[in-house]
C-alpha cells in the first residue's frame, strides 16, 4: 500500500471500523480458546440444566458468565472455541482460494491463448454449479466422522469453490499489465517468464487480490455457518458459530441467547470483513 492509499484508508471511517471489528474477531479466534474458562465439550448437566431441561441463564451459575447450552456445556467457552473454528475455516479456505485465484488468473492473463481459454472455461464451469448443491454432494461423498478430517474437507471444499471471481479480476489486470511498455521491454530483453511474473505482474495484481480476499473471508464465514447449520460442517462435539446456531434453534423461544450470541458474532465478523474489504478497495482505487 503506498502512502496515498494509506492516507485514504485512514480517513475512511467505515474502513477503520471494519479493521477494528475484524481485528476483534481475529483476536477472539486466536486467543479465545486460551481464555475459555472450561473445555468446550464438557457437559455439566447437573449444574447447567434445570430439571425441566432449561439451560442456565446468563450469570445464573458462578463461573459460567453466559450460562449453559442445551446439553449443559459452558456457552462462553463454546463461543470462544467455536469462533476459532469458524475463523480457521474462513481463513484457510480464503488462503486456498486466493492462492488458486492468483495463480490461475495471472497465468491465464499473462500467457493468453490456450491457457487463458482453458482456465476461463474452468471458471465458467465452477461458477455454473450451484454452490450449496455441490457442497452438499462433496460433503456426503467425503464425509467423515473424524472431526479433524471433516474440518479438512470443509477447508478444501470452500477453498476450491471460491477462487473464481478472484481469478477473473486478476486475469483482467494481468492482461493490462502484460501490455505495459516496461513489461514488454523486460520480455524483449530476454527476462524469463518466471521473473517477469514475479517482479512485474504479481505486484500489480496483488492489490485487487487483497481486496477480494478480504471480502472473501466474510463470504467464507457465511458459507461455513450455512454448512454447519445444515449439519454438513464441523462434526460434534466441535462447535462453530454456525453449528451453535443450529443447536440453539430448538430452544429459540426458551433461551434465545443460544441463537442470538453466535448469530451476533457471525454478523459482526461478516460486517467487519466487508467494511475492511470495501475500505481497502476505496483506498487502492480512488476512482470508484
Amino acid at each position: 500500500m503506498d502512502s496515498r492509499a494509506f492516507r485514504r484508508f485512514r480517513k475512511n471511517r467505515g474502513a477503520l471500523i471494519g479493521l477494528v471489528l475484524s481485528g476483534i474477531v481475529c483476536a477472539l479466534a486466536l486467543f479465545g480458546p486460551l481464555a475459555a474458562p472450561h473445555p468446550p465439550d464438557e457437559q455439566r448437566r447437573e449444574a447447567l440444566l434445570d430439571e425441566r431441561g432449561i439451560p442456565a441463564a446468563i450469570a445464573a451459575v458462578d463461573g459460567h458468565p453466559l450460562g449453559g447450552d442445551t446439553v449443559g456445556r459452558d456457552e462462553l467457552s463454546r463461543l470462544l472455541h467455536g469462533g476459532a473454528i469458524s475463523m480457521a475455516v474462513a481463513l484457510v479456505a480464503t488462503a486456498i482460494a486466493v492462492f488458486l485465484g492468483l495463480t490461475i488468473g495471472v497465468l491465464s492473463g499473462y500467457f493468453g491463448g490456450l491457457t487463458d481459454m482453458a482456465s476461463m472455461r474452468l471458471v465458467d464451469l465452477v461458477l455454473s454449479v450451484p454452490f450449496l448443491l455441490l457442497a452438499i454432494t462433496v460433503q456426503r461423498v467425503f464425509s467423515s466422522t473424524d472431526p479433524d478430517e471433516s474440518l479438512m474437507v470443509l477447508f478444501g471444499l470452500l477453498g476450491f469453490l471460491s477462487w473464481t471471481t478472484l481469478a477473473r479480476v486478476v486475469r483482467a489486470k494481468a492482461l493490462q499489465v502484460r501490455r505495459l511498455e516496461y513489461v514488454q521491454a523486460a520480455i524483449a530483453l530476454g527476462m524469463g517468464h518466471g521473473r517477469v511474473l514475479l517482479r512485474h505482474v504479481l505486484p500489480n495484481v496483488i492489490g485487487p487480490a487483497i481486496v477480494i480476499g478480504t471480502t472473501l473471508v466474510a463470504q467464507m464465514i457465511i458459507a461455513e455457518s450455512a454448512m454447519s447449520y445444515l449439519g454438513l460442517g464441523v462434526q460434534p462435539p466441535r462447535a462453530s458459530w454456525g453449528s451453535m446456531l443450529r443447536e440453539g434453534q430448538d430452544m429459540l423461544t426458551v433461551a434465545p441467547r443460544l441463537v442470538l450470541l453466535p448469530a451476533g458474532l457471525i454478523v459482526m465478523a461478516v460486517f467487519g470483513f466487508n467494511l475492511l474489504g470495501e475500505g481497502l478497495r476505496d483506498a487502492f482505487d480512488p476512482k470508484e
Partner: protein
Amino acid sequence: MRLIRRSSAALAALALLAGCPEAPQGPRYVGAGASPRSGGVLNISHETDVDGLDPQVAYNELSTMVMRLMFDGLLDYDHNAELIPHLARALPVVSEDGKTFTFHLREGVYFHPMEGLPEGRELIAEDVRYTMLRLMSPELGSPGYGFYNTIVGAEAYHAGEADDVPGIRVTGPYSISFTLERRDQTFLNAMAMTFAYPVPRENVERWGPEVARHPVGTGPNVFERWERGVVIEMRRFDRHFEQRPRPDRVVFYENLPRGTAAMRFRNGGLDTIHRQSQQDYHFFKNAEAWQPYLDEHPKSNVWGVGMNTQVAPLDNVHLRRAIAFALDREGWDRARADRLSPTGQLVPRNVWGYAEGIEDEHTLNLERARQEMALAGYADGYPEPLSFIITEGDVGRIYGELVQADLARIGVEVRIRQVAFSTYLSETGTRGRAELFMVGWDMDFPDAANFFEPLFHSDAIADTGSQNRAFYSNPALDAILDQARGVVDRSERRDLYRQASRILIDDAPWGFVFSDTLLEVWQPYVRGYRPHPVWPQNYRDAWLDLPRRRAGAAR
C-alpha cells in the same frame, strides 16, 4: 450504497430471529359442536418417511400407524390393551390342549377396489391363509416370521422344504384354524400384529415387489396416492364393515420437521402432532388453553446404546458393561426436558414382565464402569475411536453428544455418524458392520416376550436386516425364552422373564437407558381420538367436528 444495504439486511435478519411472527397461544380453531358425522380432511404428519406399506413386511412404528388406516386384523386391542375380535366374529375357539385356534370371520367384509376388481371383493378365509403363507414364505423374508414359527409345518415351509403349512386349515368359507406345535402364549398377540393383516392375492400378484407402494386392505380408508417422501393420501372406504363417522380423506405428510409441524399445527394446518422440539414441548405443556386437547403418557418402549457383540472390541463383555454403567441416565433426562424415564433393564415399567427391583440394573456408576474397563484390559481407556450410529436430526445429534461425553469419562472416544433412517436400519442390521448405535424398541403387543424375542433371541439374527442388532446369541437365554412362551402360569412365566432380564443386564448387549414419554396434541375439532395403549397414533376412530370456526369468534 452497497454497505448500507448489506448492514440493513443483517439487521433485518436479526430482527426476524428476535421476534418471529407469533402463532396463537391457544387453539386457533374450535369445532362446530355438531354430533358425530363424516366429512372433512384429517391432516397428520411425521418427521421421517414411510419405507413401505406391505403389512407382511413393514415393521416399524410409522408404517404401522399408516397401515392401520388401511388394513384390518382378525384381532385388535381395546383401550385396556385386551384382545378383542375385529375381522373375526369372536375371539377364537381354543381346543382342549390349547394348541388349536379356530377363527370365524365376519361376513360382508370387503377389500378395497383394486385393479381388475373395481368393486373390490369379499374377504374369505382363504385370503387369511394366503396372507399367512405369504408371510412365512422363504422368498418374502418377512421380519415377522418368528412370531408364527410355532404353527405346525411353519419351519419346513419357511425353509423352502414344503409347499404347504399343514397347521393352517381353511374349514369353511369364513372359518380357518391354526394348530401349533406347542403351546404359545403369544400366538393371539401375533395374530393381532400387522403382519397377519389380510391382503388380497390379486393385488400382490399385480404389483409383485412393488406392492409395498400399492396397499389394498379391508380397512377404513382406501389408498389413493403416494408422492414418495412427501405425502400419502387416502379416502374413506364406504363399504368398511364398521360403519362410523370418519373424515372423507386422510392426508399424511412425510418428512415434516418437528418445528415446522408444530408451527403448522398451531396455525390450523395440521390436525394432530405427536413429537415436539424442546421449545414446543415447553410451550404446549405450559399453554393453558391447550390442556384439554393434549395427553402425555409413558410409551411402552425402551431405548439404549446398542453394541454389536460380534465385532471387536465390543465382543468383550467387560467393555460392554463399562459402557452400560457409564451412561448418565438422569443427565440425559435433563437434557431432554424431563421427557425420559431412566431405566436399567429391557422391559419397560408399564409392560407385563418388568422385573421390579431386580438387582444391579444398569445405572450410572463410574467406579463400576472403570473397574470393568480395567477387567476388559483397557484401564487407560480404549485406544481407538468407536463409531456411534444414530439417525439424522437434532434429537439424534443430542443423543450422540450425550453418549460422546459420557463415554469420554471412561476413556472411550466416540465418533458420531448421523445417517438417514433407512441407512441406520441397513447398517445396524448387517452382520459385522456397526459398532455402537442408538437403538429403541416400541412394543408390538403388551407382553415381555415382545421385547426379548425380537431383539435378543438367536433366531432374530440375520446376515442382513437383522432385528437382533446386537447380534447377541446366547443358548441359555434362547432356552428360557422358548420355555417361557409356552408356560401358562403367569407367575411362573414372569419368573422366567426375570431370569432373562438378569442375563441381559449381565451380558449388556445394550446399555439400557430409558423409556420415553409421548405428548400428543390435537385440535379441538378433532373428536373421538384417544391415545391407544398398544397402537401408535391410532386415528381410526377420529371424526372432525366441522365446520371449524375461529376461536373467540361469535357464533
